[in-house]
């Protein structure tokens, strides 16, 4: 879990647009020529975020629905495992060898 938290922190940093907004405002305060460039960066970042969200799997359902489906699948696997175990361990006929 300790390794997951820094990764999560970096993911949050990637999702945040505040640094980019800060850069734009700073350029506007300084009246520098890089304002346009910063704005383009900002716009590109927004577009990338849109594409990233569109490609994410499993976000068409809510979290609760997903959890419900996950539980259902786990129950199915458990039941089928039990059935298979039961059928495979049925009594076998002992065929006497011809003497």
């Amino acid at each position, binding site marked *: 879990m300790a390794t997951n938290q820094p990764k999560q922190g970096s993911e949050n940093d990637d999702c945040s647009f505040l640094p980019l*907004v800060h850069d734009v405002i700073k350029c*506007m305060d300084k009246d520098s020529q890089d304002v346009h460039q910063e704005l383009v960066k900002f716009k590109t970042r927004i577009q990338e975020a849109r594409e990233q969200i569109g490609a*994410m799997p499993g976000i068409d359902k809510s979290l609760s629905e997903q959890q419900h489906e*996950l539980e259902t699948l786990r129950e199915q*696997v458990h039941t089928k495992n039990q*059935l298979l175990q039961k059928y495979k361990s049925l009594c076998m006929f002992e065929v006497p060898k011809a003497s």
Partner: protein
Amino acid sequence: MLVGNRSQKRRELIEMLALSRSQKLPQGGEDTQILELLVQRDKEFQELMRVAHEQGKVHQEMQVLEKEVEKRDSDIQQLQKQLKEAEHILATAVYQAKEKLKSIDKAKKGSISSEEIIKYAHRISASNAVCAPLNWVPGDPRRPYPTDLEMRSGLLGHMSNLPTNGVNGHLPGDALAAGRLPGICAHPSVPLAIIRCLSGHAPSSPWQRLWAGAPRVCVCLCLPICVCISDSDLGIGHTQYLVDPAIHHTHNIYDKHQLIQV
């Protein structure tokens, strides 16, 4: 939608900042409000992205479980096929066993002593009808069926007073018909009676009727015109005739006046 809202808010903020810079006018707490809103939206966006990542992981786990479910389904189907096959084999075996038991019961009800069966087997095989005698060689006149000679050596043969010398146990008439005796040329289409007539053994008139008590000898040649009819109106019972092939093509084959007594 959230990304769209956020981008709109930022645009407003940037426009306001640009306007304030150009106009050099104090805006009060409005830009502070917009900044606060922006920070709030950013936090919401990050939270939603975190949830989306979690849902992605759950989705992966669900895909793994779905694959397991498919594998279990195929295992169950395979097992079902095997059970069905075993049931079919067992049903066939049980049916055959029941049939065998029925046959055993039936045989027990109609049981015959083994001595009787052996006696009957001896009687059947006594005449060498089942297997040739151990000392039989090609050329031996003995046959698994009664030969002509043996038939004519019996009661009926003696009653007809026919000659008994022949070739290989067969009469000269049969040998003639078969083309094995020299002297007289026998055509397969010529009936035996005609041959006998030519050789002086048969009655000369083909329409001669039988008299009561006349000897009756069954001579069935290889000709397809051998007819066995009931001559009840003559009062002489069932006998066998040969049709003269010279005339049967033009007249009714069953006309007894055209038949030749053999």
